[in-house]
């Protein structure tokens, strides 16, 4: 093999890499927050007795979870303009990522609420707590603790999935890889470096999430 690996020519583009990294972080964090809100609303709506509220939420969850993010992204970015809704690449990316994560977190949160034994609520009420107090001190804490690991790993998966939005030209980290490649022709070096830099993000997010878990659920274990 007569190939010289030249990583230095790639590292020259640190400004591009940094700006891509920033957008990846922005996209991930905003999609996480919006997706979480959608998830909470979706989980609450899945539990209501009215079928006309429940069924659309179920349909949303199943439709999103059984189709690829890339196709959802194409529908938002290339399809919606047919209906007169025009978004630029970064906006379309955020919309698609949030809708995608919303479906997954709906399912995770719903499972968390359902996994809580009914007797916990009854015990709270029997102790003289009001419905709100029971929710606040008994249901919420335990439900959040139960779903936290699943939600955290879904968040990390979402962060990795932001690389997909480079396909529509959103200028995040992976898109910058294509840009640098076009300037240096160092395809292998570029993609290896960029792919590995996601590993740093993964480690960072995982660390942050376990720190929060420790601070909230371990440091003061009983409530």
């Amino acid at each position, binding site marked *: 093999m007569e190939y010289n690996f030249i990583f230095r020519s790639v590292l020259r583009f640190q400004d591009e890499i940094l700006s891509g990294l920033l957008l990846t972080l922005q996209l991930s964090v905003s999609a996480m927050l919006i997706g979480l809100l959608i998830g909470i609303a979706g989980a609450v709506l899945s539990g209501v007795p009215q079928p006309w509220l429940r069924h659309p939420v179920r349909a949303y969850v199943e439709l999103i979870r059984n189709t*690829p993010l890339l196709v959802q992204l194409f529908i938002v970015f290339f399809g919606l303009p047919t209906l007169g809704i025009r978004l630029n690449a970064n906006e379309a990316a955020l919309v698609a990522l949030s809708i995608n994560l919303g479906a997954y977190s709906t399912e995770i949160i719903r499972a968390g609420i359902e996994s809580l034994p009914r007797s916990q609520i009854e015990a709270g009420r029997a102790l003289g707590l009001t419905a709100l107090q029971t929710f606040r001190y008994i249901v919420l804490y335990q439900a959040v603790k139960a779903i936290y690991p699943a939600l955290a790993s879904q968040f990390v998966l979402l962060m990795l999935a932001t690389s997909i939005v480079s396909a529509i030209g959103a200028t995040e980290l992976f898109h910058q890889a294509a840009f640098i490649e076009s300037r240096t022709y160092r395809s292998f070096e570029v993609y290896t470096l960029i792919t590995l830099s996601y590993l740093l993000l*993964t480690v960072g997010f995982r660390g942050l999430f376990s720190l929060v878990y420790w601070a909230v659920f371990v440091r003061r274990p009983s409530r």
Partner: protein
Amino acid sequence: MIREFALADFGYLLLATRWTILLALTAMLGGGFLGLVVAICRVLPIRPLNWLTVGYINLIQGTPLLGQLFVFFFGLPLFGLSVDAWTAAALAMSIYASAFFGEIWRGSLQSVPLRQWEAGASLGLTYRQRLAYVIIPQAVRISIPPTVGFIVQLVKNTSLAALIGFIELTRASQIMAAATFAPLQVYLAAAGIYFVICFGLSHVSQLLERRLHVAR
């Protein structure tokens, strides 16, 4: 010339779907085989091997599949292998799948209670008999829902192979969208095809779970 998105074009998408299915099957088989190796390396009582396997799993699970696809697509030719999009996609997705299958199966194996081993031993079963008749049947039942769940992910993730130029369902829809200039209809049709495959798989999983539960 721009033409309408017609039934024949939907047929074209359906034809491209076989490559989606073929790629998913390849990744399933390749990833399944490698995943078994990963699971075994993870539970064998050899420390350095465990660490190495954990590193491998974290590397694969901590980087985006899209990046892995590109690294394989551009990286393998450097080692003198002439690699087309199909080979790169099949290899990258098998390796991607192996990390996830390995962890799922290790978890299933280890979630069989220790008492089951002890019970087997006290009944006079040999190590291999315990593994074959007591542990593995239970571990398989535990592993079915997460395994099928991941296969659904795998089918959806084959769409990323479109981005290195492998013509499967998503790439075919891109071509079709460009030809008919009806992106909304084309991509909705593609989403529909993915939905049928993935939703069907999830239902098979539920059926299988129920059947295996009865057989208990």
